[in-house]
């Protein structure tokens, strides 16, 4: 760590990990509600638990992105953060606003929360992932503006690197596209069409820029490979992400009342969407193979490689699996979607943030890498969580295929609930894998406290060619 203000990231990362634990606790609750339908009913009905699960995910990923930016930008810009006090202030505002929103979901009925927060003045609530009260959404915009100002001023008055500029572009896109969450027309087709301008253009658009920039940064640091090489990869990856992903939005317009041409455009362009993720895999393995030094932080290298592989599998392969319109006709809105969603979010966004945390946290704690034992424990948590997520995805895919057959494909289709009963075995298996994921996460948290023999500071170790 070269600049004092980088350590603000620690605050953000601790909050992110804390909320991550909360997210997974609600995840295993939801998994249980799938098989024991009245579990916690009517106190925490499924919709509330799901809202907490998904909103905690979004909030902690945003904490992770912001923390990553606060760590990465000063070092790239070769100067202290423009306004460290602002970063600290916004942290507390965001944390309190996030906590109050989650408590609101849990403590009062959602309709009462809507009334309490005067949703009628500007109705934005009650749409998937955008359930936050309007006042919270306004708070998110304010925090985002303050954050962008701080990061932007740091970059503009310091050294400008490709990584920091790509990161900034992604973060500006994140803030700009979030503004569509305030547009909620009565016309459901319009509502859905522009809802995707937040959801799709985030996760299959600008977030990929943020992710690629973070991955490139960590890879430069742990491999010592020439910046020129890494920047070329970065440009071509994000170029492919935008070229495929922008019109790829069309794969969400198949069945919402939009024109038929989206069936073709959405299918063709989203078939290209796995390419940037595949290039990310090639990129990560390529530069690690060409590394000029063996960084003592082995765990961070594992996370970086893992991100590249799992993002390709989850976002790329599992996305492609059901993205072609003739296939999606049968799979749309089934457990196949859930399978893809889980592995894509974990593989791309969860893992890239954990990569960044793994690399930077020891540095913020005054050492180059965690001690040997802590690293081994962290790597165990990597495998536990990653393998558990693979199984969650496989079980949900199994459930999805059977669901599609029984409910939509067979000559004598069953009703929704009758079909769900037949999927029970898959749901139980998924719940088991979910518990393993939770164990992996607890092991991960423990790795920060594990004592052991300190790793030698070997910044200059070079790999013999």
């Amino acid at each position: 760590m070269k600049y004092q203000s980088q350590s603000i990231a620690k605050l953000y990362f601790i909050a992110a990990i804390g909320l991550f634990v909360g997210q997974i606790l609600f995840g295993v609750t939801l998994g249980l509600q799938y098989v024991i339908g009245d579990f916690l009913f009517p106190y925490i009905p499924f919709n509330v638990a799901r809202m907490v699960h998904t909103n905690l995910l979004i909030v902690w990923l945003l904490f992770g992105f912001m923390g990553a930016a606060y760590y990465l930008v000063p070092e790239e810009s070769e100067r202290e953060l423009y306004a460290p006090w602002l970063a600290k202030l916004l942290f507390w505002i965001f944390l309190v606003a996030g906590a109050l929103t989650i408590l609101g979901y849990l403590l009062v009925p959602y309709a009462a929360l809507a009334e309490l927060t005067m949703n009628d003045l500007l109705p934005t609530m009650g749409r998937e992932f955008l359930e936050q009260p309007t006042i919270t959404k306004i708070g998110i915009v304010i925090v985002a503006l303050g954050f962008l100002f701080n990061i932007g001023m740091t970059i503009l008055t310091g050294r400008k690197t490709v990584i920091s500029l790509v990161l900034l572009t992604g973060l500006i896109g994140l803030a700009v596209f979030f503004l569509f969450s305030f547009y909620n027309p009565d016309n459901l087709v319009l509502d859905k069409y522009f809802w995707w301008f937040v959801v799709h253009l985030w996760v299959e658009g600008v977030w990929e820029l943020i992710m690629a920039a973070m991955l490139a940064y960590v890879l430069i640091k742990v491999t010592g490979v020439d910046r020129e090489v890494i920047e070329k990869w970065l440009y071509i990856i994000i170029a492919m992400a935008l070229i495929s992903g922008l019109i790829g939005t069309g794969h969400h317009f198949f069945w919402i009342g939009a024109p038929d041409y989206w069936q073709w455009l959405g299918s063709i362009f989203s078939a290209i969407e796995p390419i940037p993720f595949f290039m990310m895999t090639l990129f990560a393995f390529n530069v690690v193979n060409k590394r000029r030094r063996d960084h003592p932080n082995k765990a961070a290298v594992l996370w970086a490689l893992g991100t590249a592989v799992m993002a390709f599998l989850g976002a790329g392969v599992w996305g492609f699996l059901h993205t072609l319109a003739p296939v999606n006709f049968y799979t749309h809105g089934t457990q196949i979607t859930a399978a893809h969603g889980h592995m894509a979010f974990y593989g791309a966004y969860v893992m890239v943030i954990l990569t960044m945390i793994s690399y930077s946290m020891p540095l913020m704690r005054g050492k180059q890498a965690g001690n040997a034992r802590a690293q081994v424990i962290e790597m165990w948590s990597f495998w536990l969580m990653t393998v558990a997520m693979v199984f969650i995805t496989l079980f949900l895919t199994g459930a999805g295929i059977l669901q599609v057959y029984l409910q939509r494909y067979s000559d004598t289709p069953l009703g929704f609930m009758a079909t769900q009963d037949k999927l029970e075995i898959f749901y139980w298996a998924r719940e088991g894998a979910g518990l393993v994921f939770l164990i992996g996460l607890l092991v991960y948290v423990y790795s920060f406290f594990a004592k052991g023999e300190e790793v030698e500071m070997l910044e200059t170790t070079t790999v013999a060619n």
Partner: protein
Amino acid sequence: MRETFTKGMARNIYYGGGVFFFLVLIGLTVDTVRGLPKTDNSQNLTEEVAAGKRLWEINNCIGCHTLLGEGAYFAPELGNVYTRFGESTDAIKGFIMSRPKNGIPGRRSMPQFNFTPDELEEIAQFLKYVDGIKVARDWPPNKEG
């Protein structure tokens, strides 16, 4: 990557490709929005339907159900529930009204929302309107949703 492919070329593909396809998306969006009145059933979008949509939202129905395939996958698709329930808004209202307050032991059950008769009518009319949206290939594949 080989030296013939420079960083400058990669950068130009990023900026050029990004801007070009963003403009294409805007163009297609304008065309889509212009063409929507043909499919979006807006002729039946009454104030009652709009009120029903608000009720749909503030009770977080999307947290369990899908609507035109989007939402949660815990409870049935409702984009075609009007068709599934024999094109009867009374059947829809009857179902919503009949939900037991404390659920059904061991099974999934919709909460009891205690809607007023007017609210029930609004919700039912909203679901009828959604069913009237002309979706490609008349998705979902069958009435089970």
